[in-house]
């Protein structure tokens, strides 16, 4: 049992296997990690590259920035340097690595300096690390350099330490992905000395920021960060090794962290904090955003922020989800339970007391329902979130007309009240104003309704409460009425508007469900790729108000397989779709890759691989960043991919079935053919052998018989080979029908001449209708048809019976009949006798090839005519050939 305990945990093995598998066809990433510019990262990278080169590896400098340092330039000597791609941006040419050139060159190792660089707008990717990922995915090893402050999760700490905002960041997952991290370290004093010696280069515009940055304290702190990061990495490797070797050790139980973002400016910090926590504990973490009817979904900048937050979390390695629910707390707890979350991270509320009283903060709700799950409350700094962060804009103003309308409502209420001023108590007239507020809330939305409540109070005071036409109030009791009117107005407005929003959300949800349902229904009935693409284009286009195109692979390249109206995709879109197809990742508008495209390109991912690309061009540009729309498009793509795979699979199954049927038929044919070819040879070789060996001993009669048999069999063999050739030519389409107007009399004559030797006198009776016009036909081929038919009739009819050939016109057709007095054919076989190698039970001594009638059928059909057989009423078979007269 002791051995069993020492066995590595299956999950650990699986993880390791996956990592190895991912490594096997991906390139390996080696990161030269420093803590500041000037520590010698590029130098170290080049040195390592030279070593590899000396070992005989294929090394290429895809992009190295020497900043004119002679030592660096010297190291570059002797390394193959790829030309840079120059991207023009606002009149300036900016150098970028030429990814396509490197992919085409496909070196073993590529050097790409400055991993955190942001690419010039218009490049394929936003960030250089995405370029690097593409190189890795193509199986190229990449050496790259980066400073510690550029990692996402450390971004805010660095800012706190140095007071410098670092905008160029890379996801931490890259660090995890790296197969090797080389820490390039020199003591800060030495670095500062180099700086003073002018050995460290900065772009001019950054010089001032750098001065601020290169303070000894900063450098020490950054150095510690980088050392710790590298050490953590070593620790992880150690742990992985211990796990794989089943060395018992203290690893954390299966814990999982969940952080909840709301689109508030603090979410970003919350996410980074959670990532650090998760890192420290080495456990997976999740990020959710809960969309509620009242969560201000429709506010543009809120949506953008949520979208950014979720992207950030994804980059930091979280599993990201968006939920829709009425209650945020319920949704989070449900999600946490489903995903075995052990700890939930939430921000410390910043709301004022009285608002807390109105609605208990999320933290309280969570704690009350969390059960076994721990809740971590993280404090977040005050509203001055971070300098340089995008300014929080006010909510989009409501259309002005709505406020006008709400004023009009108050005015109308006042008009209604004025006549009754002396009659009714003012307290009753408050109700009229309340009505106006409710109507405003129902029709105009929250803010206009609140305006109505406010104006209502003023109007009530001014017009209704004595003394009239002044805001002065005679009876102070009315102040309570005012306050109540306003409070009730506001509460009703917010309630009504909430109900309205909920209804709207429901309607939207229902519309989504419906559109998905319609698509699924259409897809279920679609039996071909064309039908599926039609259904996808129609449904997706209608429900999203979008132009839709489907791209399918055609040989090496992707091709527009179908496109809806307004979804014409040019070469550029094709290239983007191609990229998405090859990399199995979304690309184009609304993504990080090739964002300048017009379409959002989603891979149609089925279980068997990516089948194609769904391109969506939304009319509403904001839609690309709405999680709701993205989810819907994802769902559409998923459904489409499933339907396509189903059609492809069923097509494959059909093909396999057809192939099997054909193979069976071919086997039967080959058997039949070899039988028919060999049988005559038996008689011929037998007869020849007999004649050669014992010819002189045989009587004259016996010799004659042998030779006649051999001769007949040879003729039969010849006929069979001829028939085989004919049917092969017919089936291969090698027979050209050359129609010329022909005399039917001539046709019959030719057939009879050809059969001359086989005909006894008077056995064929010909009935030709007088005045048959010339019929367009191929004389040679139709003669063969007639010969075959007459030959068949001769074979199957009693020796002394007549054969009738008749011809006449019927409408626009020529009818040519050959009738015999033979046994006929069983009704069920009447159509099958025209099939290849089909033979009915035949009288003794009759040899057929089973091909004659199928040749006839082939020729007649090639003429655009038809052939059929029927049993004659008096016995015997009649074969009728019909040919068009014109």
């Amino acid at each position, binding site marked *: 049992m002791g051995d069993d305990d020492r066995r590595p945990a299956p999950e650990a093995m699986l993880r390791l296997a996956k990592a190895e598998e991912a490594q096997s066809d991906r390139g390996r990433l080696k990161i030269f990690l420093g803590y500041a510019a000037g520590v010698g990262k590029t130098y170290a990278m080049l040195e390592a590259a030279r070593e590899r080169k000396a070992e005989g590896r294929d090394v290429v400098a895809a992009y190295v920035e020497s900043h004119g340092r002679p030592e660096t330039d010297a190291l570059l000597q002797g390394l193959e340097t790829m030309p840079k791609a120059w991207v023009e941006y606002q009149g300036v040419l900016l150098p970028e690595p030429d990814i396509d050139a490197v992919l085409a060159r496909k070196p073993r190792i590529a050097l790409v300096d400055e991993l955190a660089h942001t690419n010039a707008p218009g490049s394929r990717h936003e960030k250089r690390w995405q370029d690097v990922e593409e190189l890795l995915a193509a199986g190229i090893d990449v050496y790259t350099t980066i400073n510690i402050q550029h990692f996402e999760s450390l971004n805010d700490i660095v800012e706190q330490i140095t007071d410098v905002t670092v905008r160029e960041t890379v996801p931490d997952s890259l660090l995890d992905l790296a197969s090797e991290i080389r820490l390039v370290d020199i003591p800060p004093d030495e670095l500062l000395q180099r700086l003073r010696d002018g050995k460290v280069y900065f772009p001019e515009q950054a010089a001032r920021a750098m001065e601020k940055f290169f303070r000894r304290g900063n450098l020490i702190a950054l150095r510690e960060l980088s050392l710790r990061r590298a050490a953590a990495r070593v620790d992880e490797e150690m742990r992985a090794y211990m796990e794989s070797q089943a060395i018992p050790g203290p690893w954390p139980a299966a814990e999982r962290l969940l952080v909840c973002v709301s689109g508030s400016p603090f979410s970003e910090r919350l996410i980074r904090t959670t990532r650090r926590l998760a890192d420290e504990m080495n456990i997976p973490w999740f990020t959710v955003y809960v969309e509620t009817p009242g969560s201000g979904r429709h506010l543009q900048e809120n949506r953008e922020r949520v979208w950014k937050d979720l992207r950030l979390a994804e980059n930091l390695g979280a599993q990201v989800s968006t939920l829709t629910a009425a209650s945020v707390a319920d949704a989070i707890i449900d999600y946490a339970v489903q995903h075995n979350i052990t700890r939930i991270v939430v921000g410390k509320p910043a709301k004022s007391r009285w608002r807390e009283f109105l609605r208990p903060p999320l933290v309280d709700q969570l704690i009350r329902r969390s059960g076994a799950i721990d809740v971590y409350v993280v404090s977040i700094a005050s509203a001055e979130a971070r300098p340089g962060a995008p300014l929080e804009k006010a909510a989009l103003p409501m259309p002005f007309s709505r406020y006008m309308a709400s004023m009009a409502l108050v005015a109308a209420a006042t008009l209604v009240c004025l006549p009754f001023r002396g009659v009714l108590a003012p307290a009753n007239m408050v109700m009229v104003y309340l009505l106006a507020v409710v109507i405003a809330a129902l029709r105009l939305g929250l803010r206009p309704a609140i305006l109505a409540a406010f104006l209502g109070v003023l109007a009530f005071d001014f017009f209704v409460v004595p003394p009239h036409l002044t805001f002065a109030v005679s009876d102070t009791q009315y102040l309570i009425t005012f306050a109540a009117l306003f409070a009730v107005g506001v509460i009703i407005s917010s309630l009504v508007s909430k109900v309205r929003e909920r209804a709207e959300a429901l309607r939207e949800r229902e519309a989504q469900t419906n559109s998905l349902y319609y698509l699924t229904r259409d897809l279920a009935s679609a039996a071909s790729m064309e039908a599926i693409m039609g259904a996808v284009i129609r449904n997706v286009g209608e429900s999203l108000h979008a132009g839709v195109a489907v791209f399918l692979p055609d040989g090496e390249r992707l091709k527009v397989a179908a496109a809806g109206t307004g979804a014409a995709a040019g070469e550029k879109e094709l290239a983007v779709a191609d990229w998405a197809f090859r990399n199995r990742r979304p690309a184009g508008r609304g993504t990080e890759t090739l964002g300048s495209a017009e379409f959002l390109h989603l891979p149609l991912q089925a279980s068997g691989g990516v089948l194609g690309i769904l391109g969506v061009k939304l009319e509403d540009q904001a839609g690309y960043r709405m999680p709701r729309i993205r989810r819907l498009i994802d769902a559409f793509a998923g459904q489409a991919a499933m339907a396509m795979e189903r059609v492809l699979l069923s097509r494959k199954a059909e093909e396999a079935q057809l192939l099997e049927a054909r193979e069976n038929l071919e086997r039967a044919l080959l058997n039949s053919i070899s039988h028919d070819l060999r049988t005559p040879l038996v008689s011929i070789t037998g007869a020849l052998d007999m004649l050669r060996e014992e010819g002189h001993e045989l009587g004259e009669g016996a010799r004659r018989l042998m030779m006649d048999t051999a001769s007949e069999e*040879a003729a039969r063999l*010849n006929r069979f080979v*001829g028939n085989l*050739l004919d049917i092969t030519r017919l089936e291969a389409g090698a027979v050209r029908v*050359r129609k*010329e*107007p*022909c*005399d039917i*009399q*001539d046709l*019959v*004559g*030719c057939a*009879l*001449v050809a059969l001359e030797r086989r005909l006894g006198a008077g056995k064929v009776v*010909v009935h*030709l209708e007088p005045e048959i016009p*010339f019929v367009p036909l*191929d*004389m*040679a*081929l*139709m*003669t*063969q048809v007639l010969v075959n038919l007459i030959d068949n009739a001769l074979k199957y009819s009693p020796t002394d019976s007549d054969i009738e050939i008749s011809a006449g016109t019927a409408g626009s057709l020529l009818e040519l009949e050959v009738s015999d007095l033979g046994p006929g054919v069983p009704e069920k076989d009447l159509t099958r006798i025209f099939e290849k190698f089909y033979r009915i039970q035949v009288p003794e001594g009759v040899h057929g090839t089973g091909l004659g009638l199928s040749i006839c059928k082939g020729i007649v059909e090639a003429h655009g005519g038809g052939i059929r057989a029927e049993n004659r009423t008096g016995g015997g078979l009649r074969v009728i050939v019909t040919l068009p007269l014109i």
Partner: protein
Amino acid sequence: MPKENNPPRILVVDDEPAIRRFLRTVLDSEDFSVHEAENGHSALAAAAVLKPGVILLDLGLPDMEGVEVIRRIREWSQVPILVLSVREREEDKVRALDAGADDYLTKPFGVAELLARIRVSLRRSMQETPEPVYRIHELEVDLSRRRVVVRGGEVQLTPTEYELLRLLVMHAGKVLTHSQILSRIWGAAYVEQPHVLRVNISNLRRKIESDASSPHYIITEPGVGYRLRAEA
């Protein structure tokens, strides 16, 4: 009269030794003088040197197309050429005949058939000027007096019908392709209009055949052309 003493020379052109051996056996026994060639070039040389009475030619030769051999021989000689080929398609026959071949036999063929065709060819090539009166069964064509008699009674033919019949008689036993007949009687412009020919053949048959649906004199070679029956 042909010179009885010298047996007619026959040149056999075929790349298959088995076929050559078989033909030599058959023809030797009929007292022909047989010479062999196994490809196109040696056939052309032999034809020039030997001046054979008949050439039996296979179309599928290793070095050049049989039709090309016919064309080259026809540049300088009218020696009867009998094509023996496994190619049974009508366009192959037409190509060979149009190039100048006199007859076409599809392999495998009967020995009697072959000998009959050889004799017809020899006879045709040896009579310098055809007999003025041609007789077969009950059909009599007097070329010098432009008279056609069937079963004892004179038949009135249109000038075109007579020309057609005369052409067939002049080449009795030999297949004339559609285009050969059309170009000689109607002119080269009519080569693509076989319809005229069919109508005239149909009319001609009605006048000289006893049963037009099983013609006895004018034989249709489907897809190739027409032939006047030569042997009695």
